[in-house]
């Protein structure tokens, strides 16, 4: 089978063949793309399960749980959590070598930031109006959920472009409440 090159956050990994199936082994080479770095290579065996993967390396067996998330630009990114350990990584991207890895800074004009409901609940009060300038950490809405009142604060300064939430409204997780630009 042909070789396959994959990039994780820009770091190139060169596989002796495309990894396929629940279990398998493959030769991996990496580190060659970095200036001054010595390329490393080793044999990896793997087993994927319902929530992640185990890999056997020359120094032992490591397990990782994973989760795919979609960012505001609609691109997938991964969260990786080490099993039997404390290491956790977010914002990991995987791409085929040659594919352009669009970076957050290249996305041109700044899009409106969506303020979303983190859990189901009821809007108790809306504290801002459309067109109002807000500063970071300024309270925007008061939401009641799990019998607690929670202030939703601005994560960045800007102008309120649109208010979608209304007082007394019941909202589901992920519902868009406000747009800040």
């Amino acid at each position: 089978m042909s070789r396959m090159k994959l990039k994780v956050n820009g770091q190139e990994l060169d596989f002796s063949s495309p990894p396929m199936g629940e279990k398998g082994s493959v030769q991996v080479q990496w580190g060659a793309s970095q200036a001054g770095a010595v390329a490393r290579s080793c044999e990896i065996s793997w087993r994927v399960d319902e929530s992640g993967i185990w890999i056997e390396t020359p120094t032992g067996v490591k397990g990782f749980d994973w989760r795919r998330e979609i960012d505001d630009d609609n691109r997938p990114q991964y969260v990786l959590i080490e099993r039997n350990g404390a290491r956790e990584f977010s914002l990991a991207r995987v791409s085929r070598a040659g594919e352009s890895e669009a970076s957050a800074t290249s996305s041109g004009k700044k899009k409106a930031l969506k303020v979303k409901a983190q859990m189901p609940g009821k809007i108790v009060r809306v504290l801002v109006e459309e067109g109002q300038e807000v500063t970071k950490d300024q309270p925007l809405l008061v939401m009641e959920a799990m019998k607690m009142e929670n202030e939703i604060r601005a994560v960045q300064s800007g102008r309120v472009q649109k208010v979608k939430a209304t007082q007394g409204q019941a909202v589901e997780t992920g519902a868009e409440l406000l747009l800040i630009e």
Partner: protein
Amino acid sequence: MSTESKPTLLIANRGEIAIRVARTAKALGFSTVAVYSDADRFSEHVRACDQAIYIGPSAPNESYLNVERVIDAAKRTGAKYIHPGYGFLSERPHFVEACEKAGLVFVGPSAESMRLMGDKIQARATVDRLNVPRVPGSPGAVPDSAEAARFAAQVGYPVLLKAAAGGGGKGMRRVDSESEIHAAFESSSREALGAFGDGSMYVEKLILRPHHIEVQVFGDGKGGAIHLGERECSIQRRHQKVWEESPSPLMERFSEARQRMFDCAVHVAREVKYAGAGTFEFVADEQGNFYFLEMNTRLQVEHPVSEWVNGVDLVAWQILLAAGQFSLPKQESLTRRGSSIEVRLYAEDPLTFLPAPGAIGSVQYPSGAFVRVDAAVTEAAEVPMHYDPMIAKVSVWGATRTEAVNRMRVALDETRVEPPKKLSGEAQGSLKTNLSFLKRLARHPRVIEGDTTTDLIASDPALTQPAPQLTGQEKGDWEAQIALAILQQVRSQQSGVLQSSTQQGLSGWAVLARKEGVRSQ
């Protein structure tokens, strides 16, 4: 004991505490009865008991808080005893009276001592009479924000607004200046009204760099009472405890003050003829001054740490006392050994601490010497959104505090709770857990040192920041990079096969053939 004479205990609760009570009750030879709502039909506490009775819809008011239905379930199953656990009906005097009226034995204090100590304003009057120190506060509930402001000006800001009927941080607000007090009063009073049906508030001076210390007591109901040492529960988020330990690292430095604290708690418990397990909560400053906050007239969530250091089963004591088979040990016969820590694993966002209940796909708990897990969920299941989103309590014991912290660190690293996932890795449902936060806590220098105040979490933003990026620059990153690349590749192939097959309506055999690279058509 023959089957006919086997006494029956109904557990009027759910989740981990119902399972914990059932374990002890069964070991004591009791037959156990669970109650459950719609949301809990297949929950584990239902299976932990010998029998289970359906008591109504998911909303607590229509099931776990419904006195008639709980008592009816006890009558139908011939239960003589009712254990309330914590929360729900555990601190409602009218429930105790309803039990008595129905000829049932409530496992806990009398309605009278519950009224005397359970209501914060009543409890303050009681401890004042017995000269227990108290934080300067309004003598009673304040009717409006103007009155609250007048009182706050007297004792000086910052002050704390608290719901008279409250608990668990609901209806509680810190106020730093007069300009904030009116809005804060309005919102916490409304929150209290919604949560407890009572919007009355009181005001007290806020202690800076405070520690939350509490004393576990046990009374025989006849005027005898002992203490089982203190717990420190200073590490809190949203005014709710998340890391609890015994003994308190702070009070270890003030053994004389600690002894006075024990004396106060035992004195009050004797005076009100307290029956069973109860907790006196204090706030302490860094000079060892302590002030009474409130009494909880029930078993606490964090009781395992006291069980670890005292070597006793508090639930067994409660049940035996209710059954008239308990004699209170002498204070001198109890010795506390080593150090114990408990953490609460919650279905909540680890960065914002907002509840995030949902489906659990896979779960793995720690094990090993001196490690205990009290779990509500031990397999793929749902954390219902109707109740407190606690998944499990992990507690450990060590000969020293350092040993206990180290053991907790390892135990948390062994723990996994993951949502169910699609082949692409996309999580199904809304579950998040505070596990990553707890792991950071166990490594935090102030936690390791035992320098914990109630504002620890708010004072260090690093505890609640997103996980770092996978840069490839750190030692060991390469394994994670390779693992992710393989996993993503394998899964995208599998979901690709699945997708194309469902699009074309191929049979399962054809899919298999395609996957294996065999021609079947």
